[in-house]
């Protein structure tokens, strides 16, 4: 396990400065600033329309902010403003150092090609060309996400929802990214399937020392996975802090409402 205190980890990986997005007169996201460090899991919570998905889109360079900026420390150690990256550079970042796990696996997978190809495709995109090695690595990753190797040649459209989501995770992690964005990754799943997925994500995140920005409306997901939490309402961050602190000792009226709305286990 990497040492969180080492010099390398003392530099933020991603910095959001006064990030805002408006659509005409409607402000979807207002003045969001924070730093994310290597190995840190940040949960963005809030209900629909709170601006959390807009924020995630901007943080991952898929949506241009109206104001503010996002900077990212690249693998070569140089910190770059995302908007200064060319399209090719941004795509490369997405294929190598970043992952994005969508709520709907169909958005993050190619449903008609085999599971093995779904994972292998990301390796080929970063220059792998040895079929045997690609297949071995793909099988290795399917095992890590608890998918039976016998299903490697099947297309994900024949998979259950939970399997598809695990496959999407394997596809994202195979290039050993340092930062993974997750948008409601357990959203459409049954409760028992959710628990298994969360447990898997939790151990992979720790093992690979991943930084994660996860958007969720489910506080139980935030509690299980994240170190820190940001609560959003009306496009603003209204409360932020250590996850257990915010959930056990919520300060803002809206956070108290969210916490008090959880059904007891």
């Amino acid at each position, binding site marked *: 396990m990497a040492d969180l205190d080492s010099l390398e980890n003392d530099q933020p990986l991603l910095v959001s400065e006064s990030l805002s997005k408006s659509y005409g007169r409607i402000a979807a996201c207002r003045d969001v600033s924070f730093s994310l460090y290597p190995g840190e899991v940040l949960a963005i919570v809030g209900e629909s329309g709170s601006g959390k998905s807009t924020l995630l889109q901007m943080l991952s360079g898929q949506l241009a902010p109206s104001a503010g900026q996002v900077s990212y420390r690249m693998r070569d150690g140089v910190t770059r403003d995302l908007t200064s990256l060319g399209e090719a550079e941004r795509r490369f970042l997405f294929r190598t150092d970043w992952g994005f796990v969508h709520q709907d696996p169909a958005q993050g997978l190619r449903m008609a090609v085999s599971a093995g190809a779904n994972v292998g495709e990301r390796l080929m995109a970063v220059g792998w060309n040895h079929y045997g090695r690609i297949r071995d690595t793909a099988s290795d990753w399917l095992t890590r996400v608890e998918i039976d190797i016998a299903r490697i040649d099947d297309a994900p459209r024949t998979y259950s929802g939970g399997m598809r989501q695990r496959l999407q995770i394997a596809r994202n992690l195979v290039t050993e990214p340092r930062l993974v964005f997750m948008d409601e990754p357990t959203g459409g799943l049954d409760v028992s399937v959710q628990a298994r997925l969360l447990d898997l994500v939790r151990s992979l995140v720790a093992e690979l020392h991943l930084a994660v920005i996860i958007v969720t409306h489910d506080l139980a997901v935030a509690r299980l996975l994240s170190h820190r939490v940001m609560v959003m309402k009306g496009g603003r961050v209204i409360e932020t802090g250590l996850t257990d*602190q915010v959930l056990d000792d919520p300060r803002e009226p809206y956070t108290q409402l969210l916490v008090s709305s959880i059904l007891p286990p």
Partner: protein
Amino acid sequence: MSFPMTAMIDIADAKKTFTMHLQGGIELPVVSGVTFHVNPGECVVLSGPSGAGKSSILKMIFGNYRCDSGRIGIRHRGAVVDLATAEPRQVLNIRRSTIGYVSQFLRAVPRVATIDVVAEPLIVNGLARAEAQARAGELLHRLNIPERLWQLPPATFSGGEQQRVNIARGFISDLPILLLDEPTASLDAANRAVVVELVAEKKRQGVAMVAIVHDDEIRHLIADRIVDVTSFAAAA
């Protein structure tokens, strides 16, 4: 007022109030003027009736509850850090290498084997898995958890067994500060005696402890000093 430089925990005038926004914003004073210190190798027991704020104070020392004012000085890697104002990252560092918390209830992670639940704090701090598991086994053995259960997740264990797993997890690490929230609550006499022994060993290693214990006999056996929490009762 200055305490010896050696204090591991040095709390000065800490205050905590809950504001219940959903109940019309009523203020629920919990504690105020909390002031005490804990030296290495010392076990301070918090006393007072239920609702006096003992658990809240423990949570304030762990950074789980925020303070309205005052100072929670923690000696962390040779320097004093005020936990009341520390950044989340720093609080996490302090929890990983300085303060351990043994709660009454195990927050079990589904599907993780008991032996790994116990070994995890050592693995996180860089110890090899095999060695961490060996030490976890030793502790589970002492706490009378039969070896056939070690590979099972503790979620299905009895309350007493879960608590012992939790104690093993709390005592396994070499952290210089331990917070004990009723560590013997649902244990039988034999296992209570093991916990008393474990506390004594920690004292010899110089660990500073703050404990909440309802059992008079246990309190007597582990307390070096008693801090009466009723004196911190916030004026309602």
